[in-house]
């Protein structure tokens, strides 16, 4: 098993200076920007991105070229907003890209801005990423000094600048409309759509919001050509993705692999398998918001294909985070901690989520701390059903504006699906102990 390093190539090849302007220039940075500007064809970049089949790497997997195509053709100014507010539990790929290859992102932003005809891009960086913020800000200054940003870039007549904006600690700001609210100086609460950001986004202007990894991929699509890029991957999951593997594997870390590889090859072939040769009890395949999979052959041999896992198992590849838990782990405890996270991060705008996540956390707390009651699992399914009717599979059904509330229900659905008998027996025992 090997990685297919495209977006992570520079930072793996040059561990000592990949983030500096000299290190980046010595490994081909800004050559694609130069080529694109020399060619002078904005539509061609969009065509290549469309042919590449690139889908958003932040979590939702929406086709990038299609997102760009929603911008009304004659409305200016317009903005490109970069979502670098990585906060989905166990996801740590964008932090790596910011800290260790900011010039790749800057080049991707410049090319994408040229393609969608925008002159100012805002990067919303998670507040806790102090080093990533510094390195990106430095990269922008250095790129500007070399003429890759600013006025009349490389004599092309195209102007583009990038503003870096730090968040201040709120997971919800990774949701694109909450991010825009936060960038405008308000509380980060999601907006009701329509209007969609492409029509009325930042400052009520047409806006595209793209993830760090998505934009970091764009220079490579330009270099390879969209058709060539699309040969990588499987079905509608083209190209590579960076998977953040953590938990009870021997070699946790970020692995960039061609989509279509199996979970088994990623977790055992690359991440070194499970500690002390234990079995996988369950794993969460797409960040905390996803439903779970187990260590069964059926699940481990499934391909990393966004549509396949959703249609077959009702889970998502989401943000590309895979958390692995061995047999020693109590799934109810993990569910409680995830619920605590969502209760803490609920912004409070929608009643089902504001109230529901708190109740889910309370019930899961007592269940995971020996104080459960026999009807608790069904109570959770009931409460969860008020946020996500049916407590079913991805894609989410929701009574809320954004997917945070339904994300908190994923762990309930998973407990109920895979561990119902185990949980019910334990609840009966706990109740007996306290009778």
């Amino acid at each position, binding site marked *: 098993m090997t990685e297919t390093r495209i977006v992570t190539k520079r930072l793996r090849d040059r561990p000592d200076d990949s983030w500096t302007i000299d290190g980046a220039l010595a490994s081909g940075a800004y050559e694609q920007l130069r080529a694109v500007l020399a060619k002078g064809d904005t539509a061609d970049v969009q065509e290549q991105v469309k042919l590449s089949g690139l889908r958003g790497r932040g979590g939702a997997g929406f086709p990038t070229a299609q997102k760009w195509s929603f911008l009304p053709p004659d409305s200016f100014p317009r903005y490109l907003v970069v979502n670098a507010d990585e*906060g989905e539990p166990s996801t*740590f790929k964008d932090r790596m890209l910011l800290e260790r290859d900011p010039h790749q992102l800057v080049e991707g932003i410049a090319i994408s801005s040229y393609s969608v005809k925008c002159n100012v891009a805002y990067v919303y960086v998670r507040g806790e990423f102090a*080093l990533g913020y510094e390195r990106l800000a430095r990269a922008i200054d250095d790129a500007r000094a070399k003429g890759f940003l600013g006025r009349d870039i490389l004599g092309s007549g195209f102007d583009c600048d990038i503003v870096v904006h*730090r968040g201040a600690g709120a997971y919800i700001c990774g949701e694109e409309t909450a991010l825009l609210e*936060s960038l405008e*100086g308000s509380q*980060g609460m999601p907006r009701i759509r329509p209007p969609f950001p492409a029509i009325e986004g930042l400052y009520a202007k047409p806006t595209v919001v793209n993830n760090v990894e998505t934009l970091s991929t764009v220079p490579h699509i330009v270099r390879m050509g969209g058709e060539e890029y699309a040969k990588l991957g499987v079905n509608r999951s083209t190209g590579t993705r960076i998977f953040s593997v953590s938990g009870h594997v021997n070699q946790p870390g970020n692995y960039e692999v061609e989509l279509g590889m199996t979970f088994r090859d990623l977790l055992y072939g690359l991440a070194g398998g499970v500690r002390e040769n234990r079995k996988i009890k369950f794993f*969460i395949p797409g960040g905390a918001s996803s439903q779970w999979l187990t260590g069964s052959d059926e699940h481990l041999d499934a391909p990393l294909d966004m549509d396949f896992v959703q249609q077959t198992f009702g889970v998502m590849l989401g943000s590309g985070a895979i*958390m692995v838990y061995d047999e020693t782990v109590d799934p109810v405890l993990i569910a409680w901690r995830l619920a605590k996270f969502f209760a803490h991060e609920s912004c409070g705008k929608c009643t089902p989520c504001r109230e529901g996540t708190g109740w889910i956390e309370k019930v899961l707390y007592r269940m995971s701390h020996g104080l459960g009651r026999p009807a608790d699992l069904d109570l959770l399914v009931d409460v969860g059903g008020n946020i996500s009717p049916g407590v079913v599979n991805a894609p989410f059904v929701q009574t809320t504006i954004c997917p945070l509330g339904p994300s908190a229900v994923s762990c309930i659905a998973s407990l109920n699906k895979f561990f119902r008998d185990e949980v019910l027996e334990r609840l009966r025992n706990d109740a007996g102990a306290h009778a």
Partner: protein
Amino acid sequence: MSFFDESNVAKAKEILARYPRPKSAILPLAHLAQDQNGWLSPEAMEQIADLTGTTPADVLGTCSFYTMLKRRPCGKFVVSVCTNVTCLVTGGPEVLDHLEARYASEPDVTVEEVECLAACDGAPALQVNYEFHERVSPSSAVEIVEGYRSGTRRARTVSGATVA
């Protein structure tokens, strides 16, 4: 009476110039206030309101939403310990308990439990003033914090800026 000192007034103007609407500068200015003062005081929020053409209530309304903005005085060193799922199964809660007990009566150290810091391959993880430290144990975590207190490690500001 200006809350921001002279050099930060100049920085504040630079920040305001980045945005077509001044209200967007509230978060960056709140970080700047914490860099200068160690926390986000009512006086700071009043001046941020002046600078952004909003009211102190607007600024408080925005800032109270965000966990990194400290609306009460806090320690010179903010130690943020992750206890989310990967850190939970690798010892994060033990690190948190140990640090909370150790620094309970030390006003220069504020220990807080935080959500996932995006360092799960180095779990359990913590930050001191937003500098990452990974694969920590209860004892190594204390050594790290003591390194900052004694000055052998150079700390960022409580909002994470590098100190020149």
